């Protein structure tokens, strides 16, 4: 962790009732280390063909903007006002009631008024008023309008890269104003003048070039999957098949790349492999679409479309029937709310049917894509899984609803249904922090970098605080979730705010509890740790 | 997606609602109607107070009369010219204005005002 991070007590000293002495328009942004992300490396921006790739840094005075940057931005705004009803509407109908203010995790963690969603949008709205409304042109500041200056642009960068597009504010807004929409558009505008972050652009560039965010090459991908097969064999005694590029398989399994690259994601992958083997599912990975996640969503809609297109493209080539999407948050925002519109119709696929239970997932007959928690819940409902829940008895688990499957889909019960079936100790966090009111991990939407650790820890405070509550009250020692970013971002967050709580995916517990046909006597869980009561087993 | 049909429907509904007074009154054929209360022939040329005052504030007077009569036994109202009247809706007002439907109701109906007088008082109009 960066040395610049203050202590928890210092960070938590926030006063929501205190506002800066000066009007927000007169309070310039300050680029303290730990609160912002590095600029995108030029080579990646160039590879993507992004506008005006250049070397710059947020903490320097000169950002190297193109000469006509103001015209570019205003032209970009005009274009988007014509393309998105949401944008124009959200620029015009906010009444500044303030209901959204203390709903944003970044505001709750920083008490910075510009992190109130209303004011975050106002950063853009003030410019909209100045250049696109008569009142703003004539009355200026009195109408809440202001000139687009470099300082304003810097403010945009700071605060629109301090929004994780989690949509919690939109839940409470009486008009449904969605800051995620505003942030997405603001980031597109910044991108037009070459202002992007490395943590977003690099994964996007990797994904476009190699097929996944992490830059795992085709052969390494295969090695990693094979490695997982070996690990699983060591634990269970069963060698599963994990086909890649299997033409004519029934199901295409799409996972976020972290699942085969990072911990604790990897244990979830082991869970999928065990489950799909045990249910004898005829599935395949795609060697080309090795990424379900989509950082393009955090940069530009067209880029998002381009990255997403690979999934249907390779599903078509592989001649699969339908797609099974693994545990990943923003991947599911795209698969659920964008994929069909961007790259559909998927008329070459079939409505998903579970080969085990015969259930037809008719609600997915458009996208032909279902969530693995839905798939597993259906298996459990039909009693198809032979389980030993006690193997998860060391875990006292709570569930963190990831923003995107929560507020962009409504996937609340499926993961809980699975959890309750595969483990004995499950408790919920307080109701204002779960389900549709869930709090972000603080690192979504491309903010999960290390250089902005202070911002992440602040943004993650409400989530961590709720975990702390159940940790202290019920002894919760594991936070489960269905998002790859969560799995990457939550461990350091919890280590900082509530040490002693681990992070795990749902299917890790499924894999632990699953009794596989012909398995050896299980002594270790998927993490390689001894199972409850098997601490003395020889091979540990 | 534009939802053109839904939006046009919405605009039409909005305009119909906002312009309700226009089409409603026009349909009823009474757009230009102005009330013309009739002073009964049996009335003289004087009231208990000047006409101007009565037009705007008769309800205050009646309210005061009622309270005074019921609660304090005050029976007499002295007009500006010194004439004494009994504080009574039926015995004083309605004696002259013996045509409620042509006098009282004309304006009350016009304005949708429903005075509570008639909750208790029974009106026997002349000639009925």
């Amino acid at each position, binding site marked *: 962790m960066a040395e610049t991070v203050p202590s*928890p007590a210092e960070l938590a000293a926030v006063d929501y*009732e205190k*506002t800066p002495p000066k009007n927000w328009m007169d309070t310039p942004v300050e680029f303290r280390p730990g609160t912002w992300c590095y600029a995108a490396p030029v080579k990646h921006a160039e590879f993507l063909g992004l506008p005006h790739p250049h070397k710059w840094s947020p903490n320097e005075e000169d950002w190297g903007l193109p000469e006509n940057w103001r015209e570019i931005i205003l032209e970009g705004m005009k274009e988007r006002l014509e*393309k998105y*009803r949401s944008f124009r*509407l959200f620029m015009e*109908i906010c009444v*500044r009631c303030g209901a959204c203010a*203390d709903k944003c995790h970044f505001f709750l963690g920083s008490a910075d*008024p510009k992190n109130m969603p209303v*004011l975050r949008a106002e950063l853009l709205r003030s410019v909209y008023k100045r250049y696109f409304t008569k*009142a703003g042109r004539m009355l200026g500041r009195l*109408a*809440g309008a202001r000139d687009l200056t470099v300082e304003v642009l810097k403010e945009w960068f700071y605060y629109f890269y301090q929004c994780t597009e989690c949509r919690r504010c*939109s*839940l*409470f807004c*009486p*008009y*449904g*104003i969605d800051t995620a*929409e505003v942030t997405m558009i603001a980031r597109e505008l910044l991108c037009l003048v070459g202002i992007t972050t490395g943590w977003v652009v690099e994964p996007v560039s990797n994904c476009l*070039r190699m097929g996944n965010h992490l830059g795992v*090459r*085709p052969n*390494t991908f295969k090695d990693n999957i094979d490695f997982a097969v070996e690990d699983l064999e060591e634990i269970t005694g069963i060698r599963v098949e994990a086909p890649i*590029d299997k033409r004519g398989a029934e199901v295409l399994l799409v996972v976020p790349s972290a699942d085969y690259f990072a911990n604790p994601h990897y244990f979830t992958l082991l869970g999928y492999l065990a489950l799909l083997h045990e249910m004898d599912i005829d599935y395949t990975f795609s*060697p080309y679409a090795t990424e379900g996640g989509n950082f393009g969503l955090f940069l530009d809609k067209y880029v998002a479309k381009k990255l997403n*297109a690979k999934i249907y493209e390779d599903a078509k*080539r592989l001649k699969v029937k339908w797609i099974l999407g693994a545990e990943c948050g923003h991947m599911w925002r795209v698969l659920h*709310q964008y994929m*069909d519109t961007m790259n*559909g119709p998927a008329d070459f696929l079939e409505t998903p049917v579970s080969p085990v239970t015969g*259930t037809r997932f*008719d*609600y*997915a007959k*458009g996208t032909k*894509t279902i969530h693995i928690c*839905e798939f597993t819940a*259906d298996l459990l409902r039909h009693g198809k899984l032979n389980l030993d829940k006690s193997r998860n008895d060391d875990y006292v688990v709570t569930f963190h609803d990831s923003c995107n499957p929560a507020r962009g*889909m*409504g*996937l*609340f019960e*499926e993961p809980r249904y699975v959890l309750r079936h595969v483990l004995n100790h499950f408790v919920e966090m307080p109701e204002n922090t779960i389900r549709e009111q869930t709090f972000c991990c603080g690192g979504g939407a491309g903010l999960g970098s290390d250089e902005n650790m202070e911002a992440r820890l602040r943004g993650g405070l*409400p989530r961590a605080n709720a975990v702390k509550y159940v940790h202290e009250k019920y002894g919760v020692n594991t936070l489960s979730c269905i998002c790859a970013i969560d799995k990457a971002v939550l461990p350091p967050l919890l280590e900082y705010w509530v040490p002693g709580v681990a992070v795990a995916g749902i299917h890790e517990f499924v894999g632990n509890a699953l009794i596989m046909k012909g398995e050896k006597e299980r002594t270790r869980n998927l993490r390689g740790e001894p199972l409850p009561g098997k601490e003395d087993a020889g091979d540990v | *997606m534009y*939802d053109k049909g839904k939006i046009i429907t*919405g605009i039409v509904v*909005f305009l119909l609602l906002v312009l309700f*007074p226009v089409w409603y*009154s026009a349909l*009823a054929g009474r757009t*230009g109607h*102005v*009330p013309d209360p009739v002073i009964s022939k049996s009335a003289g040329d004087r009231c208990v107070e000047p006409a101007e005052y009565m037009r705007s504030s008769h*309800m205050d007077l009646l309210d005061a009369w009622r309270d005074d009569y019921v609660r304090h036994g005050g029976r007499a109202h002295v007009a500006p010219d010194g004439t004494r009247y009994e504080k009574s809706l039926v015995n004083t007002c309605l004696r002259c204005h013996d045509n409620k439907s042509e006098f009282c109701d004309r304006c009350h109906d016009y*304005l*949708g005002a429903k005075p509570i007088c008639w909750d208790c008082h029974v009106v026997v109009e002349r000639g009925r």
Partner: protein
Amino acid sequence: MNALVSFLLVVGLVLIAAAGTGAAGLQTLFGVVVPYVAILVFLLGFVRRIVIWARAPVPFRIPTTAGQQKALDFLPYQPLENPPGAGTTFLRMVLEVLCFRSLFRNTRAEMREGPRLVYASRKWLWLGGLVFHWAFLLIVLRHLRFFTEPVPGFAEALERVDGFFEVLLPELYVTDLAILVALTYLVLRRFLSPPVRYISQAADYFPLFLIVGVVLSGAYLRYLSRTDIVAVKALGMGLLSFHPDPAALRGVGAQFYVHLFLVCTLIAYFPFSKLMHLGGVFLSPTRNLANTNRLTRHVNPWNPPLKGRTFEDWMEDFKEEIAQAGYKLERD
């Protein structure tokens, strides 16, 4: 500053109307021209604003899902929070528009020792907003008696219900009291809550003060000044029939013109302000769309064609690695 300017602006409007119809004798201007212009601006401005919004497409279906999705049939779903079809979406909108469903969720966060973040349900804003809007609507409907002939039954009934308590003469309307209480709350909130004060602009104070002005001047007309309401109605009906009644114009006093002028200002200002949330709420794509994303395709009219890097480019770039992995990568 923003509040002061807005306040002075409303005071200025009052003075203009009072002076214009009192000393200057401009009854025709304030009683005929201004109302006609205001109504025209309101109607055209409102429709124009909706048309501007409507001309931009909704490229993606992005409902904010506030409850369990309708998916697996053994898991109960929440149709009003996460509507799976047109009917349930309509009901969600009804709840949103008539009951302020989203605002009803409001909570207040507090940081306590520990650190411990606690959230408490906070319904005041919901209540204040709801009371204000409903009272306003009922008051508008009650005014129909000045603009309709014969007065429709529902307006008369409303009048009776509103004056139910029969205190004061003319009876005190419950809605008048309610809107004043709600407005007081909304004004005080803007002044007393530091975050809300920090975000408040002239565009927030001005309509608020203007509505306070409308309500106070209206209450004054009813409870204190005893306006000749027959003349008021004659004036209203004259405007509706496009035959303004000159006698009626002279029959109402300057106090009435103050009320009328403030109302005219409000409705003429309406289409150019945040008050357009009245129309906007119906168009909000996070609320008015069903969560049928995986069921039916939502079409984006400007969906850009795919260009650039292809599968073949990838195969070319990673020839060696692909060979090493042993992928066949067959294609028809």
